[in-house]
C-alpha cells in the first residue's frame, strides 16, 4: 500500500514535471539547467514508475522492456542527443535489475543468516553486557531516518568537542597503569557515530557494542577476560561488554552500576573524569578476579588502544 502510494506520487510528480518542461510554462526565473534536468529525469524515471503502478502483475522483464522502449521513444521524440539514449539504456537496466544483480552477486541466493543482520543475540547467557540506554530492537522507518540524520549531521559536529588527544592519552596511560595489577584486558572505544548500515538494521546500542567487541578482537584473550567500555555519542549510550571469563565471576549488577555512573557523568560533560573512573572500577573488578600474582610471564602483547572508528 505504502509502496503504491510512493509510486503514485513519483509518477504524478514526473508527469507534471515533464508536461511543465515540454509546454514551456516553466517559470522563467528558474534556471534553465534545472528545467532540462527535470525533463530528463521525468523521461527516465516516469515510464518505470508508471508501468510499475499500472501493471504490477506483469513479469519483471516485460515491465523493464516496455518501460525502456517508452523511455527511448520519449527521448527520441524530445530530440535528445543520442548519447543520452545510449547512456540511459544500460543505466535504466541496471536500476531495474538492481535486486537481481545483488542476488546474482551473492551466488544465486540472498544470504540467509549472518550474525550481524538480525537483532537476536545468541549465547549471551554467560556473557555480561549492559547498556545505560533504553534498548531498542526494532525501529520504525521514521526512527531510522531520525537516527541517520542525528548520526550523520549532529554527531560529527559534536565529536571534536569531546574527543581530544589529551583524552586519548589519558585513557592510554590509565589503562597501561591499571593493567599491571591484573591479567585481564580493558578496551575502550569512543565512537561518535555508527555506520549507516547498522542504523538501517535497527540495532540497539548493545547489539552494536557486541559487534564492536567482535571486530576489535576483545574476545582474543587467554582467559576470556576482555572488557569493552564503549561510549556511543550519537546514540547517547554507554555500554559495557564483558567476556564470559570475567562475566561469570562478577554479578551483572556491577556492570550496570559502572555503565550508569559513566553515562551520568557523560551527561554532565565530564568525559575524561568519568571514563578514567570507569576504567579504574573495571580494573578493580579484574584485579579481584584475575590478580597478577601467579603468572606474569604471559603479559606480553598487551596493546590496549582506544579507537575512534
Amino acid at each position, binding site marked *: 500500500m505504502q509502496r503504491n502510494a510512493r509510486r503514485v506520487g513519483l509518477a504524478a510528480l514526473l508527469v507534471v514535471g515533464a508536461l511543465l518542461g515540454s509546454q514551456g510554462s516553466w517559470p522563467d526565473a528558474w534556471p534553465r539547467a534545472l528545467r532540462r534536468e527535470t525533463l530528463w529525469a521525468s523521461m527516465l524515471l516516469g515510464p518505470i514508475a508508471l508501468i510499475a503502478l499500472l501493471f504490477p502483475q506483469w513479469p519483471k522483464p516485460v515491465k523493464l522492456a516496455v518501460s525502456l522502449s517508452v523511455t527511448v521513444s520519449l527521448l527520441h521524440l524530445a530530440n535528445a542527443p543520442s548519447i543520452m539514449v545510449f547512456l540511459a539504456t544500460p543505466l535504466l537496466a541496471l536500476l531495474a535489475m538492481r535486486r537481481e544483480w545483488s542476488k546474482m552477486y551473492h*551466488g544465486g*541466493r540472498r*544470504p*540467509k*543468516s*549472518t*550474525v550481524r543482520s538480525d537483532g537476536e543475540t*545468541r*549465547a549471551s547467557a554467560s556473557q555480561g553486557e549492559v547498556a545505560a540506554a533504553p534498548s531498542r530492537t526494532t525501529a520504525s522507518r521514521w526512527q531510522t531516518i531520525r537516527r541517520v540524520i542525528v548520526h550523520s549531521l549532529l554527531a560529527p559536529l559534536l565529536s571534536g568537542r569531546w574527543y581530544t588527544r589529551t583524552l586519548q592519552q589519558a585513557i592510554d596511560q590509565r589503562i597501561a597503569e591499571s593493567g599491571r595489577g591484573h591479567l585481564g584486558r580493558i578496551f575502550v572505544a569512543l565512537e561518535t557515530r555508527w555506520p549507516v548500515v547498522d542504523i538501517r538494521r535497527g540495532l540497539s546500542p548493545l547489539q552494536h557494542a557486541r559487534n564492536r567487541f567482535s571486530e576489535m578482537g576483545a574476545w*582474543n584473550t587467554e582467559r576470556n577476560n576482555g572488557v569493552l567500555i564503549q561510549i556511543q555519542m550519537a546514540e547517547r549510550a554507554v555500554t559495557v561488554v564483558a567476556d564470559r571469563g570475567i562475566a561469570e565471576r562478577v554479578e551483572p549488577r556491577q556492570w550496570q552500576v559502572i555503565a550508569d555512573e559513566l553515562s551520568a557523568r557523560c551527561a554532565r560533560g565530564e568525559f575524561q573524569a568519568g571514563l578514567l573512573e570507569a576504567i579504574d572500577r573495571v580494573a578493580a573488578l579484574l584485579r579481584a578476579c584475575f590478580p597478577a600474582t601467579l603468572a606474569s610471564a604471559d603479559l606480553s602483547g598487551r596493546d590496549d588502544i582506544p579507537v575512534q572508528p
Partner: protein
Amino acid sequence: MNRWRRLAANALGAWWATERYFPESSFERIAARIAESETGHRGNIVFAIEARIGLKSVARGCTPRQRAEEVFAQLEVWNTAENAGILVYALLAERAIEIVADRGIARVVPDPQWSRICLDTAAAFARGEFLAGALTAVDALSGLLRQALPALPDIPRENDLIDRPVLL
C-alpha cells in the same frame, strides 16, 4: 596469486557457484552432519561459504586468511564455553579453504593436522566433490575434537553456535 590476479578472480570468478555447488539439500546435509558430530565432543564447528570478497578489500591486500579471521570474529565463533570453536571458511572465487581454530583446540592439535584437513578438502573441491569434501572435512574435524575434547556424559553441552552453513 598476485594482487591483479586476485582482483580478477574475485571480480569474475564463482558466479552462481554457491547455487550450483552447494544447493539447499547439501546445506541441510552439512548441518545435520555437524549437529550429529557435536554430540560426541565439546567443540563447535561452523562452516562458512563465501562466493567472493569485495574488490575494495582485495585491493587493500586482504588475504583469504585475514578474511577468514574476520569472519571468525563476525560470526562469533569465539563465543564458546571452552574456546573450542572451529571455523571452516571456503572462498570459492579463489578456491581457498581456511580453517580457523580457537585457542582452546588450537593448542592441543598440532599444525600439520590442520593443514592436512585443509589440503584434503581443497583437493576434494578441486575434483568437484563439494558435498563430499565438506562432509569429510566435518568428519575429520570432529575426529580431532573427539580426541581432544570428548563429550562428558554428565554435563549437558550447550550448543552455542549455528550448525547450518553460513552463506556470506
